[in-house]
């Protein structure tokens, strides 16, 4: 990868994070410096609540999934009493990772492939083969795996390595309403995670995708070729032939900027944000009415109308995940290295809702998270070019000042700005500086 020494900070002290974020600008080394990435793993990803999994991914006792908290692998396992525990994926003997699959079932506990030490769902060391060799030497209890703190919000499981972290609901704050938005769309109150998962990656820093997803100015430029192509195909359609939903999504990027200027962006403490909905895709009339009926039966007419009337675009839950309630899609942002990031997309079924709701979710997630999506391919290209460009030249500071004077409303816990603003990026870096400011 292009980069290296030239990208390190020169004038302010290199690893004093408080020197890297200034009003309306940020030092480029936050993207390009491997040492800063290491500090982020220690100070951000070890402190924040990190989205891990949904309860429905582990329906039965012994079911597990493997996930990441920053650079650390964790295993979440459902125990016989129905509780979900998270433990590090690391044998306490010689450090071998216990589990090599993303999901599976281990009703007999997790056995290490090397010498067969066996760990319960909650990390307790249950058995050591050839125990007699350890007679008077090893107490099993000394080698239990330390459980990771886990909390659920409406079935969505989060973990944190920080014993002192604020309760999950406080971490979520107003953003809990975007998770409500997803769950309340289910006429049965249940949501079920699909086993089919969509992964892509890029050679760039994890923050670049957080700074891109609610950037409403870039689509008109970065995705203009898709708009041109979608229009060309639309122009060639036979009389009465409907436009495919996937093309509708591509065309949504061609909206005039004033549309986004009028739309609201909401930012909240700890780096979170969302903007108002703008994809505008709707269900067919049959689905719309069957779905509305089912929701009314579950929620009553007032709440059902409120649920169906809610239209938010992506909610960015800093620093680990992005949520689209309307399309039942959650994406995990997995930082791998300072210059390598994986995005993992999950879709959810709403039991009791017409099948079309799931089709829409699948269509959205495929369009918004596949490396083969013409729109995503453009974003990935930009991320990698940002890494290249920030690897040289004398200009060290990256402005994030768009809309700096345009905030519309600020009440405790919530600020409203135009959706064209870079307020969400400034908000992310305020949280970043907060997490990074003090050593653990």
């Amino acid at each position, binding site marked *: 990868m292009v980069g290296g020494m030239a990208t390190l900070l020169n004038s302010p002290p290199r690893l004093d994070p408080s020197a890297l974020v200034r009003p309306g600008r940020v030092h480029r080394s936050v993207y390009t410096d491997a040492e800063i990435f290491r500090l982020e793993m220690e100070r951000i990803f070890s402190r924040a609540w990190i989205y891990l999994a949904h309860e429905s991914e582990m329906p039965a006792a012994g079911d597990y999934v493997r996930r990441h908290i920053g650079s650390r692998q964790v295993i979440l396992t459902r125990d016989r009493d129905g509780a979900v525990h998270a433990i590090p994926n690391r044998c306490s003997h010689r450090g071998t990772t216990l589990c090599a699959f993303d999901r599976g079932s281990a009703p007999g506990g997790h056995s290490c492939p090397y010498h067969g030490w066996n760990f319960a769902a909650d990390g307790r060391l249950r058995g050591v083969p050839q125990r007699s060799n350890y007679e008077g030497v090893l107490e099993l209890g000394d080698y239990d795996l330390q459980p990771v703190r886990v909390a659920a919000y409406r079935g969505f499981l989060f973990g944190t390595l920080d014993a002192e972290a604020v309760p999950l609901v406080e971490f979520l704050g107003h953003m809990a309403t975007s998770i409500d938005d997803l769950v309340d769309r289910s006429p049965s109150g249940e949501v079920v995670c699909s086993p*089919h998962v*969509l992964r892509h*990656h890029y050679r760039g820093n994890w923050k670049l995708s957080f700074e891109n997803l609610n950037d409403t100015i870039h689509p008109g430029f970065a995705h203009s070729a898709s708009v041109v192509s979608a229009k060309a*195909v639309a122009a060639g359609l036979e009389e009465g032939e409907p436009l495919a939903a996937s093309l509708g999504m591509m065309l949504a990027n061609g909206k005039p900027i004033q549309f986004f200027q009028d739309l609201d962006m909401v930012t909240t403490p700890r780096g979170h944000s969302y903007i108002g909905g703008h994809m505008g895709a709707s269900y067919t009339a049959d689905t719309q009415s069957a779905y509305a009926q089912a929701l009314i039966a579950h929620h009553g007419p007032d709440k059902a109308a409120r649920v169906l009337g809610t239209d938010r675009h992506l909610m960015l839950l800093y620093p680990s995940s992005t949520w689209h309630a309307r399309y039942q899609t959650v994406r995990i942002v997995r930082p791998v290295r300072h210059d390598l990031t994986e995005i993992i997309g999950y879709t959810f079924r709403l039991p009791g809702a017409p099948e079309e709701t799931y089709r829409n979710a699948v269509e959205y997630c495929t369009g918004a998270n596949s490396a083969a999506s013409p729109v995503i391919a453009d974003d990935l290209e930009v991320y990698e070019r940002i890494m290249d460009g920030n690897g040289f030249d004398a200009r060290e500071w990256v402005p994030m000042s768009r809309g700096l004077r345009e905030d519309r409303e600020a009440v405790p816990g919530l600020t409203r700005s135009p959706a064209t603003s870079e307020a969400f990026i400034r908000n992310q870096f305020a949280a970043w500086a907060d997490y990074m400011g003090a050593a653990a």
Partner: protein
Amino acid sequence: MSDAGLRERVRALIEDEARLLDDQDFEAWLALFTPDCRYWVPVSLDQTTPGDGVAHFNDDKQLMAARTHRLLNPRAFGAEPSPRTAHVVSGVRIDAVDDDGTVHASSSQIILEYRRRDRFEEDSRVFGGRVRHVLRATGSGLRIALKRVDLVNAEGSMNALAAPF
């Protein structure tokens, strides 16, 4: 027609389709597909229908047309310089023939892809796996109703994919 004759025709069609992609002759490529076709690259070999989950590609003909139109658009910097591919098609088989003449065929394919981005060995990639074609008998011969590409790394994490497999 004899079994050998049908197999020969199917093999020629699958090889031609791959060649048209390598030649970037997308208009001719699209013409090989039925109007209601599906081009599908699932994320798991367990997937049974294109609707049952997310996919790398899950295109109807409109999306195939938009995607390939974009590949030739110089403003599509995410695909520029545009990728060059070479398909190697091997082991074409007829797995089943329905009563109405619909042919279910499969082949093994390796796709070499090159896109010059100044990233040295990363500029070349290799994809491959089992490709399944559902070919429908039409007035103008066999046409592709479904192309399903089961990559060996279907579950894997992909970087940008511009060219169809």
